[in-house]
C-alpha cells in the first residue's frame, strides 16, 4: 500500500501475537526501547484461537511491572486489527509513536547515557 508511517518503528514479526512472552517485552525495555506495542488480530479472529487474548494479558502484566519500577506502564500497549487493515496499522503506530515521543526517552536508556 506504501502508506507512510514513522521510520523509528522496529518491527518484529511473529506468527501470532500469542508468541510474544512477557519476558520479551521486558527485555526490549531493558535494552533501551522507549515503547513496545503488540499488534494482534481482532479479538475473536485469532487463527490460533486465543493467542491474542494471551498477548493482551501479558501486555497488562508488563504494564504493571513497568509501573512498579517507575518506567511507566503506558510505554507498553496492545492494539488489535485485521491483517488486511493497512491504514489502521499506520494509524495505530503513528498514534503510538506520538504518545511515546510525549513520554520521552526510556529512563533506563537516559541513565545509561548519563553514565557513559
Amino acid at each position, binding site marked *: 500500500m506504501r502508506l507512510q508511517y514513522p521510520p523509528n518503528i522496529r518491527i518484529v514479526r511473529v506468527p501470532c501475537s500469542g508468541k510474544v512472552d512477557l*519476558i520479551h517485552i*521486558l527485555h526490549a525495555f*531493558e535494552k533501551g526501547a522507549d515503547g513496545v506495542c503488540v499488534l494482534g488480530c481482532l479479538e475473536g479472529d485469532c487463527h490460533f484461537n486465543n493467542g491474542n487474548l494471551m498477548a493482551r494479558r501479558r501486555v497488562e502484566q508488563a504494564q504493571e*511491572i513497568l509501573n*512498579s*519500577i517507575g*518506567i511507566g506502564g503506558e510505554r507498553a500497549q496492545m492494539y488489535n486489527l485485521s491483517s488486511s487493515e493497512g491504514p489502521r496499522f499506520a494509524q495505530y503506530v503513528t498514534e503510538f509513536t506520538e504518545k511515546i515521543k510525549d513520554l520521552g526517552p526510556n*529512563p533506563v536508556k*537516559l541513565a545509561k547515557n548519563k*553514565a557513559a
Partner: protein
Amino acid sequence: MIVADRKPIEEIIGYLKDHKNILVLGCNECVTVCEAGGKKEVGVLASALRMHAKKEGNEVKIDEVTLERQCDREYLDEIRDSIDQYDAVVSLACGVGVQFTAEQYHSTPVYPGVNTCFMGATEKRGLWTERCQGCGQCILATTGSICPVARCAKRLFNGPCGGSTDGKCEINAEVDCAWQLIIDRLEALDRLDEYEKLCPLKDWSTDRAGGPRKVVREDVQQ
C-alpha cells in the same frame, strides 16, 4: 503443594539496596506450579530489577539460576562454585528453600522473594486454596476427607457453628463452610449417622504448638 505469592517488587528492591552482585534463585517445584518463583518468574524479576537499577544509575549485576528445588542439599550444591561472586541472593523458593539455602551458604545474605502462604491445591489456574495445616495427626478418615483444621475458620471439631449461612462461612461469603462440606460428604457416603459422634480433644503437641517438628525414619537413614 506449598502455595506462595510474589512479594511486591518495591519490597525486594528495598532488601537489595546496598547490594551490587545479586543472584535471583528460583525453584522448579511448588512455586513454579503456583507461578510465583519458577524460571519464568526469575526472568521477569531479574529483568525488572536490572531496569530499576539502571534507572537509578546503579551498577548492578543480576544473574538468574533456577534449581530443581531448594530443600535438598544436592541441588543447592550446584551453585557452590559460583556463590562467592554474589553479595546477595533473592530466593523465590518457599520459606523452606530460603532458609535451607541460607543454611548452606552461611555468609551470603538470602532474601525471600515470595510470601509463603499455605499447603493447598490448584482449583484452577490462578486460584490456589488451602487444604492442610500440618497438624501432625490426620483425622480425615472421620470427617469425610475434608479437614476442619484447615478449612474451618474456627477449626471446630464438632461443627458447624451458628454462623454458617447457605453453606458459607460467617467470615466471608466466598469461603465454604467446612462443616457443610463435611455433612454433605458424609451424606453422600451414607455415613451421616457418624455426625453425632463426639470428637475428642485434639492433641496439638504435634502441631506448631509443640515446637519445631521433625520426622525421623531410622530405617532409611544411612
